[in-house]
């Protein structure tokens, strides 16, 4: 069995990033077409901060929106995938370090993931 090396992780990470960006941009683009088709002639209004429409605020809302073919729900799904891309990259780094048995860096990678997770929770709280 050949030894798993740094260069192997680099190739995998490169692919994860490329695929993540490509797929999420494709989804955003398709959602954009649906959105413009349905709402293109309404007035754009971003002057005051009002948050975002309720149906794209939660995971369940986005899924329901996609099923009813709503453009902004499709766009938001693409954006969520885009945000997830670098996080998935960190997960793959962790797997790479595990295969190398580099315990120090397994710890460091898990710490980064924990911080992102806490950040996610802090958004819900307060």
């Amino acid at each position: 069995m050949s030894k798993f090396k740094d260069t192997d992780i680099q190739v995998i990470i490169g692919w994860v990033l490329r695929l993540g960006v490509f797929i999420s941009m494709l989804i955003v683009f398709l959602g954009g077409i649906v959105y413009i088709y349905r709402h293109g002639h309404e007035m754009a209004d971003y002057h005051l901060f009002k948050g975002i429409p309720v149906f794209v605020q939660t995971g369940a809302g986005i899924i329901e929106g996609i099923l009813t073919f709503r453009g902004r729900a499709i766009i938001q799904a693409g954006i969520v995938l885009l945000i997830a891309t670098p996080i998935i990259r960190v997960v793959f780094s962790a797997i790479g370090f595990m295969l190398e048995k580099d315990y120090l860096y397994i710890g460091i990678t898990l710490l980064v993931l924990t911080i992102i997770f806490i950040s996610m929770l802090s958004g819900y709280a307060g």
Partner: protein
Amino acid sequence: MSIIIFTLIILIGSYFAGLLGSLTGLGGGFVIIPLLTLLLHVDIHYAIGASLISVIATSSGSAAAYVKEGITNIRLGMFLEIATTAGAMVGAIIAIYIPANYIAIIFGCILIFSALASLRKKAENITTEKNYLAEKLKLNSSYPGPSGLVQYGVTHVAGGFFMMIFAGVISGLLGIGSGALKVIAMDGIMRIPFKVSTTTSNFMIGVTAAASAVVYLQRGYIDPGLSMPVVIGVLLGALSGSKILVNSKSSGWLRWIFTVVVTALAIQMIYHGITGKI
């Protein structure tokens, strides 16, 4: 303005923001936020949200290319991501509580600073100084140079780490990659060769931005209708930028023009912030 016209204007503006950001190495966020807030009167929170999404797209896209070449120091990036993600989380939380005009003023200041920093002459410095932490953390590495592998060392690990926390806070607060601050931490403090520090900084930007984007997403800063043209435009612009081969002379000119434009935008952001028009 109807949504279709609004979307087209943002798409074109974002394309040029991405192109300029990529050619100068400052990133697209620096142009996109003034464009949205000053020209199109978009609320700064929406502008930050959309800009942050475009930052993730461009940095992930270009990081993919750099990682393959083997210049990026993945261990160094991973270690410093502890600092930047923690900082980004704090920055995103601060952004929720401080008034919009303060954000505009801070944005203007960082903008001027980054533009000036990008003009600085880049010297390829290689240190062989021994650092205890760098050895413990296996940060010393090598990259493929024109004549074989170049070995380099890393110094002042603690100092660089603290600078990265600050870079993370700014990124989370303003919705930019804050690449200039990251490069200062690595280039200036940790004495890492320029090629390695720029690519590693790029590699880290996506994760840093994701850490604050998860907060923004739940707070309703990331509006799909607005983010869609921004992210598509900036990414396409950055892609064209990476295809254009700039020779050193014209890129010098370009940097000067960009610095002037950026400084003008920055002063306007600060002015609007102080007079409370943002």
